[in-house]
Structure formats: C-alpha cells, structure tokens
C-alpha cells in the first residue's frame, strides 16, 4: 500500500512492526477518531495553522520540523504538526478527511490526490498557485491538478525508481551497467554464478508494494506509457496478452531474485545490497535513507531500468511526487494558504532537502548546488524523461492495487508460472473498482 515506509536502518523490521502493531492494528476502528482527536487547536485560532504529517520516521520528521520552524520565523504563524505513522495515515485518510482534519496535510500527487479532490474532501488552491506557479514545470503542474482542472496539490519532492548498485562491486567484478533487457538478464546470471544474490528483494509483511516498481517498469518498457496508464485507470483488461508478456519477462528474472523475499522487509533487502551480498536492487532513491555513512553513499549508483522494446526505449521514469493538500474547510484558511505558499517556495524545499537528502526538489528554482551525486543524477533522469509515472498505487485505485493486484502478484512471484490464472483472477475484480 505504501510508497515507501521511510524507516531508517537502525530499526530494521522490528521497529516497523512495532509501529504497525501499536498503531496499525487498531487502525480499523481507532485511527480515524485518534487522528481527528489530536487534530486541533480551538477553531479559528488566527495565529496557528494545523498540519497533518505522515512523516513519522526520524529523517522526514526532522525535515518537516525544520520547515515549519522556518515558516514560524518568517510569518509568526505557529504550525501545529500532528504526525501519524505513514501506513496508518494512509489507511485512515478517508475517515480523517471526513472528520475534522488538519488545515493542511501531506499527500501524494496523481490519481490518489484526484480521488479526494473529486469527492470534495479537499479544497482547491488555485490562488496559491498564482503565487508559486512560475517555479514549476508543466509536468509538475499537471500532477497537481484535479480532474476539474483546478489545482489541489503543492508538490515538495519526488524521487526516481531505478536499478541501484554499489560501484565498488561492479568495479571489482568487472560488471557494466546493462542498457538492454538481454544484457540485464545476462548480468543477473553472471552475478548468480559469482555467488551474489543478483536482485535484492524483500516484499514481506506490509512491504509487498515494493514489487510494483519492477512491475511498472516491465510494463512501461514492454508496452509503453499509454498502455500502462490505460491499465492503471482500469481501461484495459488484465487478461490482455500484452500483460502475459509482462509476466513472462518477469519470470525470466524471478530466479535471480534474492531467496526468501516474501519474509523480508525492503529495508533488509536494501541492507543486503549495502553489505555487498546482493548485486542490484530495483528500488526508489529513498534507499538512501538506509545509509548513514557518507562514504558508503558515494559508492551507490544506479542505472535506469533497461530497455525492452526499442519502440518505447527508456522514455518513462517512475518518479512519485509527495506534497501537500488543503483540507475541505480549514479552520484558518488564510494561514493555511500562506503556509502552502511557503511550502511551494524554493526556500522550503532547500530546508527540507538539507535534512533529508534522499529526494529531489520539484521547484525549478530550488538550490541544486548542494545535491549529492545521486540527487544530481536523479534530477537529470527525471528531467530527461518523456513521461513520468507515479507508482501503481498512486496512478490507479489504491484499493484495487492493494486488495487485488498485490496479493495476486506476490502469490504469483513466489511460484512464477505462466500467470494466466493470476491475470484472470485480477481481471475478474477490475469492474468492481472502475465502474464509472
């Protein structure tokens, strides 16, 4: 369900689980009221703005704190931050927004933002965009608009998905970054022979979303952007033979996945890459949150997911965008708009990226001089892309992805066969989610 859980390495699976255990279990009944309960100051306090944040892990939490502090310093408006565990935040978002939500809250661009805009659970922010608009590219603008053409979203950062590896491993063993599918498969084969787990993989527990990165890229490279978006929006049958092709391709690399992936968290999988036990990992730039040693960060590099069909080349990059929205009836509308204007400024982005360097700023005037090599390369990759996708569960109905597609694909991935049955099972559910 989650795009990224953003839990630093130190905690490993346990910390994640504790958070889940404490907060997740009661989520069904409790999270909604709990979220709203700690929501707010007395209505209409003109001196403060409330901010619902899903950045509960150490790094983003610190980064948001720095941003809100800077805002208070500039405008003397206090920001009351209400931080909720990332997964819980997502699960309870619907009841949260229907209750008494905070004035502004963190959310994701794309279909998921549009869904709540359509349901009138968020307020348009066109006036904010009049101020901040000049700093954003056309693509970023498109990502921030609802289906009615109004703006509902202020982007903060995005991060590309790619194939990550350690430079030193590639150097020692004489590997070169593959550009095409056949080279990629050959490299994986070679790595296996050399005693590495070729593709680090961990989709255990609540981390099954992490397999979607590979799925999206396979589909984008084999069938192209238009088909992928059609599929995501429920316009194409999953039993289409182009989908069988995707699973066939996936089946080719499945034997090179790290064994035991279904019981491992993505953090543990990333760790095995850092420890040189695995050769590559299909993951997002947030992998960087696992790294504490700057020397190690310099040893990490990535190459874009290889080309499968020359007709589509590598023209699409998966780069989910995170940002902010305004709730439907904020208690302090003026203050909240001011806060959003600040969040959409290069200054706010610089402050955020200064604390959490594993993302790339969206604002074109954001300071890129302090970027590390990975950030620079990421910005180039995103900048050069013809199409930018968000992520399966952001481009599509998240309920469909999490309750139908994910269980189907994870089950298939643990015993990859020709996939016809899996695709049929997914297809049989499609109509329920995309009726209108």
């Amino acid at each position, binding site marked *: 369900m989650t795009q990224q859980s953003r839990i630093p390495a130190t905690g490993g699976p346990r910390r994640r689980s504790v958070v889940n255990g404490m907060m997740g279990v009661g989520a069904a009944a409790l999270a909604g009221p709990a979220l709203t309960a700690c929501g707010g100051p007395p209505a209409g306090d003109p001196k403060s703005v409330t901010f619902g944040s899903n950045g509960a892990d150490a790094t983003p939490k610190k980064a948001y704190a720095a941003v809100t502090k800077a805002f208070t310093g500039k405008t003397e408006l206090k920001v009351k931050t209400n931080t909720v565990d990332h997964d819980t935040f997502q699960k309870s978002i619907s009841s949260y927004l229907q209750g008494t939500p905070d004035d502004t809250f963190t959310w994701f661009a794309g279909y998921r933002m549009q869904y709540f805009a359509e349901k009138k659970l968020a307020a348009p922010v066109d006036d904010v965009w009049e101020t901040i608009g000049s700093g954003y590219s056309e693509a970023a603008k498109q990502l921030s608009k609802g289906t009615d053409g109004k703006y509902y979203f202020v982007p903060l950062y995005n991060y590309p998905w790619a194939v990550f590896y350690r430079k030193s491993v590639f150097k020692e063993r004489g590997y070169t970054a593959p550009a095409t599918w056949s080279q990629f498969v050959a490299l994986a084969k070679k790595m296996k022979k050399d005693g590495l*787990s070729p593709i680090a993989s961990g989709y255990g527990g609540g981390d099954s979303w992490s397999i979607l990165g590979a799925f999206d890229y396979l589909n984008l490279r084999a069938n192209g952007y238009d088909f992928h978006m059609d599929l995501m929006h429920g316009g194409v049958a999953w039993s289409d033979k182009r989908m069988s092709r995707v699973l066939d391709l996936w089946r080719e690399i499945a034997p090179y996945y790290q064994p*035991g992936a279904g019981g491992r968290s993505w953090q543990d999988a990333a760790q095995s890459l850092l420890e040189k036990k695995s050769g590559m990992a299909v993951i997002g730039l947030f992998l960087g949150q696992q790294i504490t040693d700057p020397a190690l960060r310099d040893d990490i590099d990535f190459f874009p997911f290889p080309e499968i069909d020359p007709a589509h080349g590598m023209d699409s990059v998966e780069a989910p965008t995170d940002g902010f929205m305004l709730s439907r009836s904020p208690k302090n509308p003026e203050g909240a708009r001011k806060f959003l204007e600040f969040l959409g400024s290069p200054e706010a982005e610089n402050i955020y990226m200064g604390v959490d360097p594993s993302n790339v700023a969206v604002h074109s005037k954001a300071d890129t001089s302090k970027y590390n090599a990975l950030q620079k390369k990421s910005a180039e990759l995103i900048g050069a892309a013809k199409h930018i996708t968000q992520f399966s569960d952001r481009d599509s109905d998240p309920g469909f992805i999490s309750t139908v597609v994910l269980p189907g694909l994870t089950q298939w991935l643990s015993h990859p066969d020709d996939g016809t049955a899996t695709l049929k099972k997914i297809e049989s559910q499609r109509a329920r989610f995309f009726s209108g």
Partner: protein
Amino acid sequence: MTSTLEAPEEPVTPAARRSPARPGRPRRLSLRDRLFLGVIVGVPLLALLIFVWLPALASFALSFTSWDGISLSDVDWIGWENYSEIFTNYPPFWPAVQHNVIWLLFTALLPTPFGIFLAYQLDRKIRFTRIYQTAIFLPMVLSLAVVGLIWEIIYNPDNGLLNGIIGAVSPGTHIDWLSDPDLNLWAVLVASAWRHTGYIMILYLAGLKGFDPALKEAAALDGANGRQTFLRVVFPALKPVNIVILVVTAMESLRAFDIVYVLGGGIGSKPGMELLSLLITDNIVGETSHIGYGSAIAVIMLLVSLTAICTFLVQNFRKDKEEE
C-alpha cells in the same frame, strides 16, 4: 452465558415474593421508583439499540448498496449483487471461509484440549505449580498484537530463531514461514495456539478449584483410575466451564484477526492467510472503501456466527430440560 445458567431460577423468586406482599394493588412502585427503573432499564436498552442493533441493521442495509462511504447521496442500491459477486467471483472468499473453518477445528482440537490437560495436571499440586501456571499463562497477558510481534521475530527468515535452530538460513534452504501460502496459516495458528492454551488452562483451572474433592474421593473409593475419574466424574461435573470454553474457542476462531494482521505485515489479507475478518477490513478500511461489499461479507460472517452460536445454545437448553 450467565443468563443461561441462572434462567430457571428467576421466575421463581420474584413471583414468590410478590404474591403474599400486596395482593390487591398492581402498582406498588412510587413514581420515583418507576422513573428510576425506567432510567436504568431504558438507558442500557437505548445504548443497546444505538450501539448494537442500529449498526447491525445498518450493515445489513448497506450490504445491498454500492457506496464509497463519503457522501450519503452516492449510495447506490444494487440489491443482491454484492452477495452474488462474493459467492461467485471473489477469489479470496472461499479460501477465507476455508481458513476460518481450519482455524476453528485446529483451535478446538489442539490447544483447547491441551489447555485442559495442563490445567488438570497443574491442579494436582505438583511442585513449582505456580511457576508453571505463570509461565503458561504469560502469553495471555500480552495482547495478540504483541504476541504477533514476538512470533514475527521467531519466524524471520534471515535471522529468526526458528530458522536459526533448524539451520535453514543459508541460501537455498530458506524457509519463508510467513509468506509461503502453504505454510503461513499454520505458522500463525501455532502462534495463536501458544496464547490460547494458557487462556483455556486458566479458565479450566478456575473450574477445577471450585470442584468438590469429595466427588473425586468417591470415585477413587469406587476404584476408578485417573483417566476414568477425569472422563466420567470431573469433566461432566464441570459442564458450565466446558460450555464457557467451547464458546470462547468458537468466538476466538471466528473473530481471529489481530495476530494475522500483524504477522501479515498489517496490510489485510495475504495469500494463504485470508480470513473473513480481514476481507471485511480490506474492503472497508483504506483510501477507497467499498462499504457495501465489505458489509455484505460482514453480514455473511454474522450469519455464520449466529448459526453456530444458536445451534449450540439451543442444544444446550434442550439438554438442560431433558435432564430436569
């Protein structure tokens, strides 16, 4: 439960008391008393209606709709469609039913008798009995979510206790306890049994403490051996406790949720671990909810539970009457 056991007594006492007191006057209560009675009966009744029956009926009504849970004007009445979809075209449904049945059978056949066995042994005043009792009961003190966390550490494929002990950590021999669809249900059942055993033990132990030792002595004098004493004397005499245990077991199996949720990573149903309760939350909780669909599954689960409980209660009442 208690009402079942006390039921036969109730009509006797008030009637007996009332008739000699004031035969001529039907209303002996003052206005204040009646007001008071009205409040103490009325408030719980109202609460029951609002918090139990209303939601239950609402779920029932909602199960005939298609609704995203956001604005009431979007409610779309679609009749039996949800039900027919669920029964014919919802891949996780039948596995979930099957897993619920497995859960019930497993819990009733293994940890429950084992708990009774432990209780019986511990009741015989063996040495260190308190330590054993505490040790076995300890998991019960923890919430099932915490139990889940403990077992998550045990089942971890890379550095978990279990794989460490049996030597399944090197590549190729990995056993993926929680994600292999053929294994994970059993892994979860073991974890839940670990806790359930202690629960049953303490319930049964409480029953045994109140057991009249004279009956045992009489059985011993009649020449009954240990097994006979238990099966023919102790077990039947502890019928009230047995009923409690049966109901507890059935309830725990039907409402099984939290431990699976935690061990599944907190994302609802996973292949191999589908349960009805998880399918309900899958559909209702989340960003895009399918309230109608989820309600329909909830109604199905309610009907299954009611059928199980009613059959059971009716049978017990009948037996009680026959015995009288």
